[in-house]
């Protein structure tokens, strides 16, 4: 079964590329390594692998080394749950001193951010150390991880294949062992799709749970932020460090911090779990079904549930995305249309032309759909569904066959994620380490019950059914240039 990571604790003489955040923090707190050693190793690995994976668009080396030095001289390292843990963020999060490009050419002319976004501030308050910003699809309107300005993110498991997007650099950086965790955004699936294609864990929390303050938006109705990691415990640790309301964020819920890390070991006893049928089977490649059924079998799940009108939910999410995205970029479309990725520009121009009456209909439908899905959750606690219809397609591949029809890859990688984020449900994407390529499964929970999805994910990880497998061929690989 899965190729699990080595369990050895890191020290300055050990390869930490595959250590978890929890292992690194424990080693730094115990004094068996230093934050400086950890950060230096992460920076060296980024320098070595980024020419191959193209995950980073900026490296904040001086800042990271300064921060590591401060952690090493702190007296209370054991109180920092992420002491000395390197991480990176999709380049739509504000990082003090660098420009928030959001994957675009246009934003490169903006002023540098004058301070970090709150999620980075909270992670660093817990001891984590930012080492850079990550590649992404332009303005997050993407499921592939390709970017015409910065080049495509490359999948660590097969560098000729997509990472998935739009948080492609986040997927590649974590799956390639450059950092133990990263942050991304998910409007329609941009955390769950790269998690699936890169074979790592991803958490898309409930809509409104994590603050979006000082990040570059895409679709206000649907944008979420969340972590990627190589273990469920790391998802929980980082998520716990980021929770809480934030001043100036209209969408962030006024909820107290509800820690989940201590809940992980409660297991699945007493939880009613079902698999999603109907829409969520249609078009799935055999590997997506194999992964889903393997997990269902391990959890002894027999019940199936149907999401009513899931196809219409996906259609409504598509419509709201195109039109709200167009509203956000209207002035830029008028002023600098030639500077967009053409594939993004043409969809935004189309979105700008959609009559508003149709968009209101989609928002009315959204409330109806939410009520029906909440009724489903009166009978089950968690629902399993594929994360993507297939494993990672080739970079540049534009079409595949779904349900007997040739359709474009870019919008259709998200067919199983869109009906879920449409109503903001929390989801953990878990990686099933199939060969030759991994694929993810969504564990979907009711609103504000991230703890349930994480408990199920943790139980599966303990059973060895899901795991972030270490890519082969990256270690010792000679530096070489890839053309995009």
């Amino acid at each position, binding site marked *: 079964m899965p190729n699990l990571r080595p369990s050895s604790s890191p020290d300055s003489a050990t390869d930490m590329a595959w250590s978890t955040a929890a292992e690194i923090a424990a080693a730094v707190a115990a004094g068996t390594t230093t934050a400086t050693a950890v950060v230096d190793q992460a920076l060296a690995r980024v320098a070595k692998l980024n020419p191959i994976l193209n995950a980073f668009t900026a490296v904040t080396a001086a800042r990271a080394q300064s921060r590591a030095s401060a952690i090493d001289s702190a007296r209370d390292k054991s109180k920092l749950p992420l002491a000395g843990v390197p991480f990176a963020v999709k380049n739509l999060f504000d990082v003090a001193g660098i420009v928030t490009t959001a994957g675009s050419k246009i934003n490169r002319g903006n002023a540098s951010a004058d301070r970090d976004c709150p999620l980075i501030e909270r992670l660093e308050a817990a001891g984590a150390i930012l080492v850079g910003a990550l590649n992404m699809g332009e303005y997050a309107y993407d499921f592939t991880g390709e970017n015409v300005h910065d080049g495509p993110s490359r999948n660590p498991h097969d560098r000729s294949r997509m990472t998935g997007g739009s948080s492609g650099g986040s997927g590649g950086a974590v799956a390639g062992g450059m950092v133990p965790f990263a942050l991304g955004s998910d409007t329609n699936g941009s955390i769950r799709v790269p998690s699936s294609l890169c074979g790592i864990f991803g958490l898309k929390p409930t809509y409104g749970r994590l603050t979006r303050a000082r990040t570059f938006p895409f679709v206000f109705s649907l944008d979420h932020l969340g972590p990627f990691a190589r273990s469920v415990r790391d998802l929980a640790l980082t998520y716990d460090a980021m929770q809480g309301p934030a001043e100036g964020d209209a969408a962030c819920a006024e909820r107290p911090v509800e820690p989940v890390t201590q809940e992980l070991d409660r297991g699945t006893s007493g939880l009613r779990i079902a698999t999603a049928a109907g829409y969520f089977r249609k078009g799935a490649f055999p590997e997506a079904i194999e992964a889903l059924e393997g997990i269902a079998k391990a959890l002894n799940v027999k019940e199936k549930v149907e999401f009513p009108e899931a196809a219409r939910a996906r259609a*409504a999410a598509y419509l709201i995305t195109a039109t709200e995205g167009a509203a956000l970029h209207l002035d830029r479309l008028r002023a600098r*249309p030639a500077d967009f990725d053409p594939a993004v520009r043409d969809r935004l121009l*189309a979105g700008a032309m959609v009559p508003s009456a*149709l968009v209101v209909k989609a*928002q009315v439908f959204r409330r109806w759909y939410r009520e029906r899905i909440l009724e489903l959750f009166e009978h089950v606690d968690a629902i399993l569904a594929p994360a993507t219809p297939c494993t990672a397609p080739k970079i540049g591949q534009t079409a595949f066959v779904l349900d007997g029809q040739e359709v474009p890859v870019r919008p259709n990688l998200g067919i199983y994620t869109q009906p879920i984020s449409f109503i903001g449900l929390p989801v953990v994407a878990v990686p099933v380490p199939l060969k030759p390529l991994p694929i993810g499964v969504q564990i979907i929970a009711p609103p504000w019950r991230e703890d349930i999805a994480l408990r199920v994910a943790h139980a599966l990880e303990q059973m060895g059914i899901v795991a972030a497998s270490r890519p082969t061929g990256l270690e010792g690989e000679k530096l070489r240039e890839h053309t995009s």
Partner: protein
Amino acid sequence: MADPLDDFIDAAARALSLPLKEDWKPAVKANLDVTLKYAAFVAEFELPDDAEPAPVFKS
């Protein structure tokens, strides 16, 4: 006979001051066609007049 969607796109681009080069039109049309089909699929789902949209402003 001219496709009314072509006329709609030309008119919308003019009315909204959207730049639209001739060689962008096929892709814009293809995207608008898909978006409007999805919109029609959503709109044909019957809901009562008092069904509220999802985002509700709270003062």
